[in-house]
């Protein structure tokens, strides 16, 4: 089977937990990262597409380093990337990030409160640092 073309980017796979505050934080952070902070270096892959076996999504995680953002300890995003043949460069749990930003208490589901949005932003900024490192390593590898 021919793989669809894709560019080399860091793949971001957030939690798909619908109806859960921490899942919403993970997705909000992924949007912040892929749309605002590092649009050139990242690619958002929906967990549901991996679950469905979408070829493009599976190729993306198989060929690029992935950063997963899980909303709970079931860690569906991390597990699914691994099951899809991907390499998880960093696994992030929203709860761990919240422990570092106690002032940003997330609430809400469809719409996050201000604390939730700030937590998502903080999370995205942390992930951006990892993205920069991965991109730098990738460039270094290609130049070697």
């Amino acid at each position, binding site marked *: 089977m021919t793989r669809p073309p894709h560019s080399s980017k860091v793949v971001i796979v957030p939690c798909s937990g619908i109806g*859960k*505050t*921490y899942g919403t934080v993970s997705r909000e952070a992924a949007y912040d990262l892929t749309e605002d902070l590092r649009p050139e270096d990242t690619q958002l892959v929906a967990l549901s597409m991996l679950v469905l076996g979408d070829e493009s999504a599976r190729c993306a995680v198989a060929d690029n380093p992935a950063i997963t953002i899980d909303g*709970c*300890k079931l860690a569906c995003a991390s597990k699914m990337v691994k099951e899809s043949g991907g390499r998880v460069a960093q696994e992030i749990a929203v*709860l761990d990030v*919240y*422990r570092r930003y*106690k002032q940003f208490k997330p609430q809400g589901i469809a719409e996050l409160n201000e604390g939730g949005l700030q937590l998502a932003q903080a999370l995205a900024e942390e992930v951006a640092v990892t993205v920069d490192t991965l991109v730098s390593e990738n460039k270094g590898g290609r130049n070697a």
Partner: protein
Amino acid sequence: MSEFLETTVDKFTFKVATDCLYNAEGIWAKAEGNRVRIGLSDFLQQHSGDVAFAEVKSIGNEVAYGDEIAAIETIKVNISLTSPVTGKVVEVNPAMSNAPEAINQDPYGAGWLAVVEPIDWAADKSRLLDPQAYFTKMKREAEQEVKKG
């Protein structure tokens, strides 16, 4: 090493340590010499969700049976935890400030909350549930939760 009563309700398995006594909300108390160690039951921690923060009354505080001895914030709720014993807090689990997930990972072991020096342990004991009684109560609550969906 604790032994457990165990039941599976729906997809969840709950353990009740047989060497502890329990208050109605699911705080366990375990006598150790002249002191009592306390923590959350397996059912209470699973029902409450992943713990983000835990604050336990500091050493030297006196608590009465039924008074708040700790508060936890989980991904679902904020809960006030009441003391199953009257006495003075003499030890607090240091993990509560930097790794409160120990409550979820090992509720009857590394996830203990505090040690209290009781004033009248015999009186407190008489108000607590033995493991079988708590097991029955917990199982009923778990089954009701499943029915509620």
